[in-house]
């Protein structure tokens, strides 16, 4: 701890808090709202220290009334604030979807640009720890399907910081989907890596054998699979971290697949009608006559997320599942 700790790059969750702190400091119109984001510093510490630093008028603890809070945030955004509102678990979108989907996403359009909508919906997902069926869903496909919403899914601390700051600066609505299983991770290159804007994918690992497209925690699972002691050690994969689903950097994906000739999209969301279908279909639409190899998807199986660790592991993708899918891809 102490000095050592202070000079280490921040953990993902600290990067979130830092981004919020920097935005709150830079712009009086930024406010943070949500259940327990204030004095408690957030259920996972993502707002730690902000309440003390910026006070209860700007870092606002709310009752458990998410639909109302999000609706109010929409109104506040139209009236000049830049609210960052937290939905504690992505699963809770079901109780507060209207302000996101029917209001924030549509009002700038329905008013032909008459209103700005500088609002950020922060939420987090992260299966694999027996959180149960109502605390484990990855619902980014639902959001990406709604025109007017941007969807950011930072896969490490660096992106957690950069994408959140970009989201707060955006004059339109952005949903930022964090991953609680990354909250304690540090990006060792936090200080050296150049920030990338939203809409730009990142080649995490260059390779020629096949392209894997991922985001969020699955980026990390692929990296683990490719590690020297991982099940894909020695396989020359190219790994693309999409970082944002909307806007979507299809070009980087396409260039990669042109090079490798095959593609696998990996996500924690359910495969069926999931986000990977769009990526796969877009790749095929662009490259049907240019690449030979298969385009495949790996996501969660079609069940609610079960509680028991063995069952959950059977349902969610992980490094081993990725390895198996990649091998099938290389053979296919």
């Amino acid at each position, binding site marked *: 701890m102490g000095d050592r700790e202070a000079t280490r790059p921040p953990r993902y969750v600290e990067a979130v808090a830092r981004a919020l702190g920097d935005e709150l400091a830079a712009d009086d119109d930024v406010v943070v709202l949500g259940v327990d984001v204030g004095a408690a510093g957030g259920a996972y510490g993502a707002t730690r220290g902000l309440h003390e630093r910026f006070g209860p008028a700007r870092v606002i603890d709310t009752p458990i009334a998410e639909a109302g809070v999000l*609706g109010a945030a929409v109104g506040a955004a139209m*009236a000049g604030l830049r609210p960052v509102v937290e939905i504690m678990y992505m699963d809770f979108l079901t109780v507060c979807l209207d302000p996101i989907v029917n209001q924030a996403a549509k009002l700038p*359009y329905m008013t032909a640009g008459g209103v700005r909508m500088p609002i950020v919906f922060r939420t987090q997902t992260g299966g694999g720890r027996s959180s149960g069926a109502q605390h484990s869903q990855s619902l980014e496909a639902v959001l990406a399907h709604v025109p007017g919403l941007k969807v950011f899914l930072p896969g490490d601390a660096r992106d957690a910081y950069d994408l959140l700051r970009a989201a707060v600066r955006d004059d339109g609505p952005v949903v930022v989907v964090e991953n609680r299983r990354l909250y304690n991770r540090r990006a060792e290159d936090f200080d050296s890596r150049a920030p990338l804007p939203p809409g730009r994918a990142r080649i995490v690992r260059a390779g020629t054998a096949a392209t894997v497209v991922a985001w969020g925690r699955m980026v990390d699972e692929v990296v683990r699979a490719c590690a020297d002691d991982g099940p894909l050690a020695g396989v020359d994969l190219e790994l693309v971290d999409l970082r944002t689903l909307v806007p979507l950097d299809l070009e980087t994906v396409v260039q990669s697949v042109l090079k490798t000739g095959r593609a696998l999209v990996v996500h924690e969301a359910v495969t069926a009608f999931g986000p990977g279908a769009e990526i796969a279909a877009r790749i095929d639409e662009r490259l049907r006559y240019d690449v030979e190899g298969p385009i495949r998807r790996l996501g969660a199986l079609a069940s609610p997320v079960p509680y028991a660790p063995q069952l959950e592991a059977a349902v969610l993708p992980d490094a081993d599942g990725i390895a198996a899918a990649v091998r099938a891809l290389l053979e296919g």
Partner: protein
Amino acid sequence: MSAELLADVTTMARIRAFEERVARAFRDGRIPGFVHVSIGQEAVAAGICGALERRDMITTTHRGHGHCLAKGADAGAMMAELFGRATGTCGGKGGSMHIADPSVGVLGANGIVGAGIPIAVGAALAAKLRRSGAIAVAFAGEGTVHSGAFHEALTLAVLWEAPVVFVIENNRFAEFTDSEAMWRGAPLLERALGYGLAAAERVDGNDAVAVRGAAAEAVAATRAGGGPRLLEAMTYRHHGHYEGDPAAYRDEAETAAWLERDPLEVARRALRERGEEGALDAARAAAEEEMDAAVAAALAAPPPPLESALEHVGG
């Protein structure tokens, strides 16, 4: 008082003339989609918005034309919007249920029952935090109070001491359902006070003088930091829920009684007492002209350019 009454009469006459033309244009197939007009409820819009300043903000409902006009939206641009023209308030992309004019504080009608209420609370919170001096008004129908949105919005408004006035237009019906049949327990005012609102008052929504009086008081108190409050305006819509609804679910005698109390006629009596009865007819005549011109301009306006269909997506 008289200046205010005259202003409100002018507003009411304008709303009436506007809505009558909307209803006609809809019947004639010139306005697409569906429209909900506010004929019979003009005194609420006029009295409430009359008490507001330009910087103040409102959110309204599917039945929002009157509120928008009263808050200062341009009738020509509104009519063009309903006709789906490029010159509309929303460039033809919003329509009746999404009509808005943020430049005069109209943050939008809404197609989702209840959705506008928390939006107004948030706008009020922003005004408070930014010390703009503005307040917000949330218009909603009486059918809306059972929704979670109403409950959560009132809870937050009180907690945040947000400068917002909730205006419940009680026109007795929610679509085809008699709202009395859905009501149990204490009356709205009592419940509203239970949330900790600073005040809750019922007002004759067909009497512009009464509405304006209550509104002026509520707005002033709220602006002065007195906390959020609620007005329940008792009124009636002369037409069906939407244009085309024959409203067969209503009692004819009741409707007749309400028609007797047409807010324009109530205003006429008030003007008469002040010896200014002529003002109503003058206002109506002027409004007829204004709204005829609005229709003509809308008809003459071009449709939105096709490329606008993909503009302003997400801001």
